[in-house]
């Protein structure tokens, strides 16, 4: 798995068969996160295999919510990992962030 554009931490290039994991940690808030992969619910732990052929893409949409008792510095930290060994940290999500970021995984090989 690679991140071809350093300015775009949400777009990845992967190989067919690669297993991708998305892990998140809720700090100062309840853990209220949903995820969807290609039209279907992505259950916890958020994990899937790249099954498409090049140059198709897998699409993931996430949503992070903050409960009303969250602390002033509440945030989510999260990262995307591959079973091939790569791990990429994603920008933290705070209450003022875009709370439903999208990830795309282009299958290139």
């Amino acid at each position, binding site marked *: 798995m690679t991140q071809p554009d350093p300015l775009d*931490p949400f777009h990845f290039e992967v190989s067919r068969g690669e297993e991708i994991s998305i892990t998140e940690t809720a700090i100062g808030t*309840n853990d209220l996160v949903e995820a969807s*992969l290609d039209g279907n619910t992505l259950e916890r732990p958020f994990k899937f295999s790249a099954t498409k052929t090049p140059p198709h893409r897998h699409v993931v949409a996430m949503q992070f919510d903050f409960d*009303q008792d969250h602390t002033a510095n509440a945030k989510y930290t999260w990262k995307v990992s591959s079973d091939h060994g790569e791990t990429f940290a994603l920008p933290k999500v705070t209450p003022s962030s875009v709370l439903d970021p999208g990830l795309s995984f282009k299958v290139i090989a």
Partner: protein
Amino acid sequence: MRRIIAAMLAALALSPFAYAQKGYPDVPQVISARVALVVADMDARLQGGAPGNDAVSPIAAAWDQLFFYTVADGIAPEQDKAEFSIRTLKAAQYLGETARTDKQISAVSSATGSTTLVEKPGLVTFLSYAVEHGAIAKAVNGTSLTLTTSPYSLLVLGEGGDTAQNFDKLAFWRRFNMSASFNMTDQSNVLNNVTTKQLSDYSGKVSLIGDRSTRSSKFRDLWNKDFAPLIQRRLNTLTKGQVALLDKLAENSPAFLDTSDSVKSELLKNIADSLQGKTQMSDTDKSSITDKIFAALHDGVYQQVKTGAVDVPKDTRDFINTNVIPALGSANEALIAARENLKDAIDKFTKRPLLTFEYTGHRNATQSGYAEFKLLYDQHVAPLDVVINAGFSTYNTPSPALHQGRIREYHGNLELGGKATNPFPVTDRDLAKVTYSVSAQLERFEEKGTNIAVANFRLELPIAAAVSIPLSVSYANKTELLNEKEIKGHFGLTFDLDKLYALTRTLTK
């Protein structure tokens, strides 16, 4: 909270009505609202110290949705009369923050000018001050400094911080919290006031029954059962449409996908360069960046599809126009309705029984200090909220000369409160209710052998959107100082920023 409101208001200020849409004439609202949120997020990141390269990440986070909505705009039938079309589709609602009614935001009951006779139990006050990295929270109120901590906040320091997992795992230790107040003489560095000499009060609280925090696993279960499925429905509909489109484009027009990736990369680089060295955005920056994003979407995506330079097959067009967009519209409507349901659910959640024990030590420079022991109970008994406090206080060093024994006083409080429909609603969207309470307090001072009875009536009347007047009238048969009856009244003005924001946002739709 202040930061959230500021960011949200910034997003509102960046609405399509705020800036001319040169880059994307007649841009659909679902796109312009999302771009406004992106720019507000970028500004917040810059103000948080992120460099320009990192501050552009919200554009990347939102790009897949922006791309999808822009293609949907390009393939939308002319004069679409459908109930839900890309032109009528509204921005998705986040459920997140919802106003809560049991936060005791007025002064504590013993403070001058307070309109509250009975203290409410609960750890909300502590939780609102919980710290992410430090184990102690500090709050300055006039000439008083209060430090608050708990075993929980100390324990999480070595356990990875105040995470959702630790909040569940260390739930027992969340039941305890302690605080100490100091008289402030040094306003420049408030922590300089933390000395034994300046210590005025100290207290400990134990929550014996109940946990009303929306950070608890019980609230998460409620969320997962009733609200997560609605969010999931929207996300699944969205990715279903996205992947249907991307699969067709990958088969028929792979070069267009590569080109749109390049459009995004160029946009990110251009904006990151323009933000280098900046710590916040000016209005000009916001306008310029908004226009650049609109232009990239319009020229790089919309025009390609609209002019037919990129072919989106008819079956895909039909699927998006007649299936995905209406389903997204319906999912959004469900989320809008869910916001009200969530408010009701939280209301019920925060009315579960709660029993707290509280110890407070009062120091006094000239007389003997004393300690208070209180039990606080709070429960909803339809249609009223019932709050009962009972306790006693003891002198630390009784003075025989002042006829003081060990026991200083006994007291008991009872409050019955409720809500009623506002007879003067400002708009049909203003759901604020009139709140009222009747309370009574009986107190016996042992050294003087006096019994003091106080009755209080409190009414909070909404007079405008998110603005209300709290009024109270109290009667006492005598006071601690004077052996004569006293009748006094208080009134004030309360602004609720949470509601103000929610109303502003609703009214703009």
